[in-house]
């Protein structure tokens, strides 16, 4: 209880309210307390209409144990004063949310009153906003229709900035200044009096429209960019792979090109490209080889397997990596070693046998820049596969 209505305050309030002197009020109150005590002693109960009942309640004697000696003792019965409020008063007290929070946290005691108001205001605001949004399309149409009727397209453009400024203070300030301010620019710009009603309303929604449209545009653009980026990267990586794969064959094929008549189309096309001629092209391809060698050299030793484990319900590549390699960061190697079986690394079918390759010290060395780069590349590839 933070605040208390003191005896003197009560006396003063009583005196002013009842229109009697403070002295009379004091006399009355002391008589009241005296009689209350007397009444409790005599009748054990004093009822005050409009407030409640003071009662003297008997507490029965009970047995207890002396804690230090273990002796049984009897705590004698006594009377205690209780007050049971009248139904109306009780309800009134129970209704208060303030005190319950005050009791738990005195600091927040003041808040519960405000939030209720705030919530109410918020509700109003939301309703208002919803109403605005709901009317949006209609108003927008109206706005679009108006310029058609009037030959001048200008008014629309001019209206935008001005009303926006006017529209903002509108809800805050009283409605009265609104027509005055709005009326001024309108006669100048638009001659028709009918418009006065319509433009007033669309102003706000219009502003919303622009902001919303802008936002939508930005989001869509971003999405497109991201999508395009991934598409291009996928294509590039696919192209690189297709370039890399045939190359080891190509060196052989150059020597014994005619011996192998059964070939896939890709190497054939490459073959045709390279012999045809240009050395620079070959050089470029060789460079590609050199770059890709890193990955291929490390992809090869996957033949050395620790074990092959079946994918079970709830398992993850990262967890397997953690189990076998001690670090979940190495999961892309698992994906790399099982590309033929894994379509989507984040959603592998239960029962898929996963080859767990033995990794070299180099590959597991997180301080090794080259191997980490390779790992990073694999991870990006694997993550791209996740999104397919």
């Amino acid at each position, binding site marked *: *209880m*933070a*605040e*208390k*209505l*003191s*005896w003197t305050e*009560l006396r003063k309030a*009583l005196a002013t*309210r*009842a229109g*009697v002197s403070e002295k*009379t*009020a004091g*006399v*009355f*109150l*002391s*008589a*009241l*307390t*005296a*009689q*209350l*005590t007397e*009444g*409790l*002693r*005599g*009748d*054990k*109960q*004093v*009822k*005050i*209409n*409009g*407030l*409640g009942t*003071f009662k*003297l309640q008997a507490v029965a004697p009970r047995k207890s144990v002396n804690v230090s000696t273990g002796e049984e003792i009897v705590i004698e019965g*006594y*009377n*205690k*004063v*209780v*007050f049971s*409020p009248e139904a109306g*008063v*009780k309800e*009134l*007290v*129970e209704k*208060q949310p*303030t*005190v*319950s929070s*005050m*009791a*738990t946290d005195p600091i927040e005691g003041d808040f519960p009153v405000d939030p209720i108001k705030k919530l109410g205001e918020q509700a109003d605001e939301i309703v208002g906003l919803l109403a605005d949004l709901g009317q949006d399309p209609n108003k927008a149409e109206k706005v679009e229709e108006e310029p058609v009727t009037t030959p001048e397209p200008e008014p629309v453009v001019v209206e935008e900035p001005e009303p926006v400024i006017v529209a903002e203070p509108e809800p805050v300030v009283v409605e009265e200044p609104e027509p005055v301010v709005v009326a001024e620019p309108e006669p100048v710009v638009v001659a028709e009096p009918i418009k006065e009603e319509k433009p007033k309303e669309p102003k706000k929604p219009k502003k919303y429209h622009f902001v919303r449209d802008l936002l939508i545009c930005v989001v869509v653009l971003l999405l497109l960019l991201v999508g395009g980026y991934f598409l291009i990267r996928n294509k590039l990586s696919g192209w690189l792979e297709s370039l890399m794969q045939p190359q080891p064959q190509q060196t052989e094929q150059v020597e014994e090109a005619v011996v192998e008549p059964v070939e896939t189309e890709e190497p054939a096309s490459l073959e045709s490209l390279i012999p045809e001629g240009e050395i620079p092209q070959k050089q470029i391809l060789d460079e590609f080889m050199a770059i890709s060698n890193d990955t291929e050299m490390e992809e090869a030793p996957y033949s050395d397997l620790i074990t092959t484990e079946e994918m079970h319900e709830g398992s993850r590549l990262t967890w397997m990596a953690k189990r076998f390699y001690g670090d979940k960061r190495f999961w892309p190697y698992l994906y790399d070693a099982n590309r033929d079986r894994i379509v989507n690394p984040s959603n592998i079918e239960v029962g898929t046998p996963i080859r767990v390759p033995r990794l070299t010290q180099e590959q597991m060395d997180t301080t090794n820049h080259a191997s980490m780069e390779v790992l990073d590349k694999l991870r990006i590839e694997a993550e791209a596969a996740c999104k397919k």
Partner: protein
Amino acid sequence: MLTKDLIGLIAEASGLSKKDAEQLLSTMNAIVREYLMAGKAIQLQGLGVLEIKERASRVIVHPRTGERTTIPSKNQLVFRPVANMKDELKNA
């Protein structure tokens, strides 16, 4: 003892008319209610304090279904008698 009796006794003790006493009593009740509604405690000198206390929320378990429900906290109007009065009436 009912309100009527109390008013009679107060009037007798204070020298006020019964009507005045009744009016004062009802006015006092109104004031007390107002302050209680504002979350204030009321001190009644020589008697005690009328104050609002919170009963903490608690969880109850349905004995048959084992279902748990929370009973929210609520306010309760309690009377805390002055020590003097408490002792006086203890063995009344």
